[in-house]
């Protein structure tokens, strides 16, 4: 054998060994459609966060202006800006300067004697990005708390989150844990009544500025179900972000409850506020519903208790979501897929069967048509399969059902390159050229056609990868990998084996 061939053979052998090593070193990562599990796509309601940020900003601006002896007549919060009018409009310029100096993230304008303040584009983008990031982290924490450590939580585009939990899951409980905002707020109660109408009747001119109406959770009093409605101050005294810990417990009546503890900062604010509110009620609000509204007996600082109509399991789940942190914004479920484990197993079995059938059919055909060379191309095909498998493992690509389909399609298409070459060689042989020359010519001439053909397939696969979601990406990935590896096996590996077998022979029976 020529030295050049020897080196090539060693190279191919090395790739073979490396591929086998990858294949046995790590199991292939199976997509949820193959192993069963749940996947959810959530959208983060960033507008909601911006609205709350505006409320907070309104409070801060009011405070700052007061410090500078500027009295505010009204401060309206709208979806995308604050509208501030002052008691003394001549102070507009001064107020403008105060806001400009103290709130660099805000754009201020004076028009018609009214100040408009809005977040700068940069700040808005920052808020959005941070919100989604925080949401991802919070959801990850929550799932970790539940011991589902192999779950995947990742950002999807600008404001979406993909959650994938492999294995058997209770979809409803999972959704409750993932999707619950768990926004805890402690708010001062202004007024309350046992129906909304009754409450509204007391304010014929509309509810006071800076307050809102919240619904309580139904309770059983003397055998009757009643629901209390609350008029509460708009801005919370403290929120869940000032929460240090939350644990499931029981209340004084022995019913499930959740005890929480505030951070030092939260505790000092809460202490100060409750000192002023003795004899009044504080609403404990979870996701915009009043779960309880105890009367303040004395200054409270560090801890509190949430009671409600919980089952022990619900109390435990609530403690988990509070401990893992509130979602910075509500999330909406856009897409949800749950795949049972038996379906995944069935799918693998069936596609495997299809793959083997395809391989046998194509293999037999190639040997029938091209004899020895056909056999070589089947070996190359198997080698190609091994390479695809190794690449999937090496690049850590998740194998999906369409992904397997991509590999099977590849079995048919991969021999294409060999067919083009072999047909070409046969043509050359027919023209009376020797075996050696024909083989060389065949490979040389087929090169352009093969390259163009494979590149166009790659283009289609690449576009699919860009636009496709989940499983389709898997198809595009295996198709691309297969296209690239098949160029190598069809052109290089087959040529090498042919060269070795043909050696210096002028002709060989059953070569083609």
């Amino acid at each position, binding site marked *: 054998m020529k030295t050049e061939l020897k080196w090539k053979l060693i190279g191919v052998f090395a790739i073979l060994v490396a591929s086998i090593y990858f294949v046995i070193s790590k199991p292939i990562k199976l997509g949820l459609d193959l192993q069963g599990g749940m996947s959810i*796509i959530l*959208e983060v309601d960033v507008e909601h966060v911006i609205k709350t940020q505006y409320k907070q900003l309104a409070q801060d601006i009011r405070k700052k202006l007061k410090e500078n002896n500027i009295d505010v007549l009204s401060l309206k919060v709208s979806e995308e800006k604050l509208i501030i009018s002052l008691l003394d409009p001549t102070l507009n310029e001064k107020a403008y300067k105060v806001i400009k100096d103290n709130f660099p993230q805000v754009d201020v304008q004076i028009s018609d004697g009214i100040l408009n303040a809005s977040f700068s584009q940069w700040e808005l983008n920052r808020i959005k990005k941070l919100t989604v990031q925080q949401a991802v982290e919070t959801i990850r924490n929550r799932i970790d708390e539940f011991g589902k450590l192999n779950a995947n939580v990742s950002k999807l585009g600008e404001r979406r989150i993909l959650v994938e939990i492999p294995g058997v899951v209770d*979809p*409803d409980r999972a959704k409750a844990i993932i999707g619950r905002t768990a926004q805890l707020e402690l708010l001062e109660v202004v007024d309350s009544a046992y129906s909304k109408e009754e409450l509204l009747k007391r304010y014929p001119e509309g509810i006071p500025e800076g307050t809102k109406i919240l619904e309580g959770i139904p309770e059983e009093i003397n055998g009757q179900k009643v629901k209390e409605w609350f008029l509460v101050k708009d801005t919370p005294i403290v929120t869940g972000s000032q929460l240090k810990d939350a644990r499931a417990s029981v209340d004084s009546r022995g019913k499930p409850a959740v005890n929480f503890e505030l951070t030092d900062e939260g505790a000092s604010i809460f202490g100060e506020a409750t000192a002023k509110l003795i004899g009044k009620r504080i609403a404990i609000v979870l996701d915009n519903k009043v779960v309880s509204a105890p009367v303040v007996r004395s200054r409270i600082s560090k801890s509190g208790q949430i009671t409600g109509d919980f089952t022990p399991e619900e109390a435990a789940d609530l403690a988990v979501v509070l401990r893992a942190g509130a979602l910075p914004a509500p999330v909406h*479920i*856009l*897409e*949800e*897929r*749950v*795949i*049972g484990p*038996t*379906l995944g197993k069935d*799918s693998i079995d*069936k*596609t495997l069967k*299809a793959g083997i*059938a*395809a391989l046998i*059919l*194509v293999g037999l*055909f190639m040997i029938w*048509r091209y004899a020895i060379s056909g056999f070589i191309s089947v070996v190359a095909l198997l080698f190609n399969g091994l390479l695809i498998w190794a690449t999937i493992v090496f690049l850590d690509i998740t194998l999906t059902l369409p992904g397997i*389909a991509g590999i*099977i*399609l590849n*079995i*048919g*298409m991969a*021999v*294409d390159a060999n*067919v083009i070459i072999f*047909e070409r060689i*046969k*043509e050359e042989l*027919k023209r009376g050229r020797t075996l050696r020359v024909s083989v060389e010519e065949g490979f040389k*001439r087929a090169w*352009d*056609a093969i390259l*163009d*053909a*494979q590149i*166009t*397939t*790659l*283009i*289609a*696969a690449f*576009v*699919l990868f*860009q*636009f*496709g*979601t989940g*499983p*389709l990406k898997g*198809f*595009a990935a295996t*198709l691309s990998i297969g296209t690239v590896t098949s160029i190598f096996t069809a052109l290089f590996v087959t040529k090498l084996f042919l060269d070795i077998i043909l050696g210096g022979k002028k002709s060989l029976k059953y070569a083609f």
Partner: protein
Amino acid sequence: MRNFLDKTPNIDFLKIKKQGYIVSTLLVIASLVIIFTKGFNLGLDFTGGTSIQVKFANRVDISQIRAALRLVNLQDSMIQEIGTEKVEYEIRVSLKKGKSSEIVQKVKKALKEKFGDRFEIRKIDYIGAVVGEELRKASVYSIVAVLVAILLYVGYRFEPVFAIGAVIPLFHDAIITLGIFALIGEEVNLAVIAAILTVLGYSLNDTIIIFDRIRENIKLRGKKNLLQLVNQSINENLSRTIITSGTTLFSVLALYLFGGESLKGFALALLIGIIFGTYSSIYVASPLVVDLDRFFRKKTAGEGKTSKAA
């Protein structure tokens, strides 16, 4: 026997190019008419809604499932059999019927009441309206993007005439595949779109190999009698075309027959696409190159004359 393909045939493919054009045009028009009148059976991916796949322990009729769903007022949901053994079904509920978690609970409750524990929920899919709309858009964009990318690549590698000749058949293949799906009411979902994109790549692949031979023959003999050259090129490549289409069809057929229900639509789209892709390379792409070339050459020759006269 195995050598029957060895003889280079001498078939005048382009003799019937007019008939080819007519057949193709009719097929495309018919497909478009069916698509616009009958519409697609769009999958959950595009419409949104909740789909629940249930497998029963023994044979169950659709009417029994419908009766069970009447208990929870979901009897007008779409119920589709999966496979042919009457044990597995897909129940699809539209978005209008309410929240997905409630629907799943309702369906579970109804089935439990009627069938006890003799069923298993295999799969639940929920797609919101926004996602469905987006996926619809993304599918159209991706098909357009593939066509443009291919147009550019072929234009760069060959001549502009070839680029046009390569891309028009792609529209032809995609439209006919979709038309057949509309005709037989087979579900069009994301996997089918993926299959169509693959078919575009495949069909072009086929076309390009013939083009490559045409280009080679032009280099050898010049462009003088393009029609003959094209005919010769198709003939020289015929064995390859038959074999490659054959092996790919084998694989896809195996996928269609053994690959299970979830890949059936996908494999069907590939199957149709490969058949029409092979046909269009010979009867649409190749004659187009000849005719377009003649058209442009006449035009430039005509312009040459007028400029001379001026």
